[in-house]
Structures are given as C-alpha cells and as structure tokens.
C-alpha cells in the first residue's frame, strides 16, 4: 500500500494487492484526513471494494470525479472531498 502526493497537488492511494475490507477502509480513512476540496485517486484491484467505495462516498457527500481502468483488473477512482 502506498500513499503519496502527486505533482499536481492531488493525492494518490495505491491499495492494489489488498482484499476486503482494507481498500474501502483505508480509502475512507485517508479521505477523512483530507480537507474539503482536495482530490484523491485510489487504485484498486479488488472489484467488490469499488462498489463499496462508490456508495460510501455518496453517503458521505464526496464527489466521484471519474472512474477508469488503467489496466485489466485495476480500477482508478478519483474522489473529491
């Protein structure tokens, strides 16, 4: 697992390799630490976590800016707090 700040000021959380519940748990914990308006991209290779993160963000009022698959089996979700 890797968390870093990218050159464009956005954050990136890489939870590939992790299985439930870790991806959704760390995503929400990291989002908690961000300030309003900040953007974080999460990289996940555990399909069920993608659904849980999407719904959890809706519940918390975070905006999903985009979802794409940079390579087979991996999903990148961009979330704004």
């Amino acid at each position, binding site marked *: *697992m*890797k*968390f*870093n*700040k990218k050159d464009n000021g956005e*954050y990136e959380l890489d939870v590939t*390799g*992790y*299985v*439930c*519940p*870790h991806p*959704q*748990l*760390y995503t*929400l*914990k*990291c989002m908690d*630490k*961000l300030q309003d308006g900040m953007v974080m991209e999460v990289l996940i*290779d*555990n*399909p*069920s976590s993608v*659904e*849980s993160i999407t*719904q*959890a963000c*809706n*519940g*918390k*009022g975070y905006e999903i800016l985009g979802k794409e*698959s940079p*390579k*087979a*089996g*991996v999903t990148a979700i961009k979330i704004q707090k």
Partner: protein
Amino acid sequence: MAEAAKSSRNKIYAVGIVVFLAIISLLYYLSAPVYVYIIAYMWFGFLFGILQQYGRFCFASAWRDLIMVKVPRMFVGIMVGMMTFSIIAVFIFMYYPERYHTSQFGLHGLIGGLFFGLGMVLAGGCATGSLYKTGEGNMISLIVLLTLSFSQAIFAVTAFDFIFEKFIKSLPSFSMAELIFGQPAGVPEGTSYHVKYADYSFWQHMIADAGVNAILIGLILLVGVYIVVVRKGFLRRRAADMTAEAGASADGGEAKTGFKDELAGFWSMISASRRTSIAAVLIGIVAALQVFSLGWLAKHYDFVNFGNVLAGETESGAKPPSSWPDETYPSDVAVRSAGRNVNQGGSTVFDPGYWYITTQEAMAAAWSIKTVGLDSHPANNQPGYLENNHYFGDYNGIPVPWHSPALLLSFGLILGASFRALLAREFKWKFPTRELFIYAVIGGTFMGVGARIALGCNIGAFYAPAAFGDPSGWVFFLGMGLGAYISAWFVNFIANRKMAKMDMDFDIEL
C-alpha cells in the same frame, strides 16, 4: 495495443471455460445419463458464480461494510434475494416436499454464527464469497477456502460428535408454519414430531414460511438498517435540497421532511445499488430453479439421494435402470449409511439439493487426507478414523471429489466467477502478502469451526433456512453479525495504528 490483445485473450479464456465444462458434462453423460444430476449441480454453480461476481455477492460484505463504512448495499441485496427465494421455494416444496428439512434451533447456531462472523471479516469473504473471489484470481481467497476446508474436516473428526451428542442432537427443529399453525391434527400427544412440508397447506407455508419468516423479519431488519445507518444522512441532504429550492422560489426558511420523505429514503437505500439488487433477485430465482430441477431429476431417475445411485439402490426398489452406471461405488457413500434400506434413507452421500457451500469442501479436505494415507481406510469399507463419526460416517461420506455432487457446484461456481471476471476485465492474479496470509488462515479457520458448530455456513445455516421458513437461520444470522462486529472493531484498530504512522505530505510505504 497490449491491453486490446489482453482483452481478446481474456475472451478466449472465458470461452475456453465454457468449452471445458461442456466437455466434462459430455463425458459424465456418456459414462451414465443419470450423472446429469451432478452435471446440473455444476452448471448451477456456474450460474451462481457469474451472478455472485456480477453482484459482488458476499455475506461478509453485508455485515462488515454496514458496520465499518456504513454501506448497506450488500445487506439489502441479501435480504431482497432471500425474500424472492422464499416465495418461489414454497411453490417448489409443494411439489417436492421430501426435499424439505429444518435444522435444530439453539445456542449452537448463535455460537457457530459468532465464530463464522469473526472469521469472515478477517478472511475478507464468507464461504461462498471466497469461492467467487478465487475465481477472480484472488489466491488469498483460495487460502481461505483451504483453511476453511481442512479446519472443518479436523473439527468434524475430533470435537463434532461430542458437541453434537451433548448439545445439539436433542434440540427441537421446527418451521415457522409449525410455530404459527401448530402441529397437524393426528399427532399423538407426547410423541416427537418432525415437521413435514405436506402437513401444511400452500397458503399456510406462504403466510408463515415466506410471509413471516423471510419477508416480515427481512423487512423489519431493513427498516432497522434504514433508521440506524441511512436515515439521518438522507433526510439531512433532502432537507438541504428542499430548503435551497424553497429559498430560490419563495420566502426561504428551513424545510421540514415528512413520512413521504422517509419512504423516499427507504427506497433510495433499496435502489442504491441496482447491480447488487438485480444479482440478488436472479440468485434467488436460480437457487429456486436448482431445488426444482434437482428434485425433478432425482424423481425422474428413481432415487432420493445421489448416494442411492452410487450404491445401486433405486427408490422404487426395482433393478437400477440402464441410465445408471454399471458399477456401484460402495466406498463413496457414508460408511454407516451403507446398506440401509430405502425407508431409512438408503445409502447416502452429501446431496443437499440446493445452494450449499461448506460441507462438500470439508469432504474434499477429508478425502485428500485419506488419499495421502494419513487415515487408515479398511478395504472392506469399515469406518476408518475419519469416517467413524456422525459428520462423515452417517450422511455425508468421503466420496471421491468427482462423485461429490455439491463439490461440483463449488467447482462450477469458481469457474463461473472466472468467466464473468475475464469478460469484464476484472480477472487478476493476486497473491498474499504476509499480513493477508495471516488474516486468511485465521479467518478461514474460524469460519470452518463456526460452520461445523452451527451445522452450516452463511448459505446452509442462514440464507436457505431463512428463506425456507426455518427460524434457526436467524439465530445464525444474529451470531454472524455479532462476530462481524467484533472482527470489524479489531481490523479497524489495526488500521488506525497504521494510519497513525502515516505522513500525509510525503511518499510513504504503509
């Protein structure tokens, strides 16, 4: 370009899976047409795998995501699927009442459920969730399956008989129909009555088993989840939207929400994940079709339990027809049931007739222990150490894997999930780190022990009984929730410790 090539390769692998299963099916059928019965198990498993992977259907997720990240998606999906299944199940059991049974109601369900719930959150998936995730290429889930299988087998041959004899065997088992409408007339006072489906009418089953046991209890739980998890956030957002609208059009002020808004909130919870709900309803329908098809096939081929076929005993007592195998396989039926007459159930092997997950895996683990020579299995089919117990000896047996009907369901389920994951570009080989390996082994072991104490897993001890009108399913469900809560607390504690070491501004390895 490389991604496009990978994508078309995935499609070829997906087609390869279907061709592979078709060839297996053909070989079984050519060997003896009656084997269409276990081929059906395999293809129903394939369908469950596709649907589970599509809907991310996992009971661990139902409790865990509700507790840890306040996401009710899977909890809702499971309830919706179970309710659908309950209605269709009544129609089916009216035709095949002999395939209905209830389980003992008691504390073992709560304790087993607690162990199971503890395990499934640590393992990252329930018994059936781990199967579909294995199909996605997740080898952590495969470790969960292996530990789940072996821990069950070891528990079954060591502690199971003592616990079963002392605490479970004499417990009552009853259906909601019996609880509401009482025992049927003509049962002599003081005799023990085992609920029989045909003793009650269609409407009694529909009202009690589907209406009360599945739908009413399911709805109460859904309303509870809405009130505890969803309501506050939904109404706050709704009031804010209404206030903004009123402010723009009239005199402003804070808008008040009413009962209509509560209904809208409840519906938003149900419809929030279309994918899960669609999969849940389809799983309910497939599960019901499975009960119907297997019931029909067993009747058509003149047997009650597949063990009858392996032992060459027809239900009618006639000579086995030409559609049955020429040979018999006495070492594949439960040792203590071998040679029993048909009225006593005949020779049996584990053949639940519906969606079931853990027992067949315990049997496969026991078979591999037996096969590598760790258990002495006398040639004259006397019980060896592994089989001299209620679990393997009386009903389930330790058959070769290719004669184990429900194991073919598990096999089909893994491949069904692979098929869907390949087509959806979601298949990815994933291997455990040390941390995930430890979680998987501990979680799988807890699940295995819990499943045996409770006489079933999230499907056999909850989903199916709750849908079939057996109140014991809810005892397991409650235990599973308590266990999930404790494990969720533990996993959260570990995560917080890791987060405390995090530095938000620099590249870090967690």
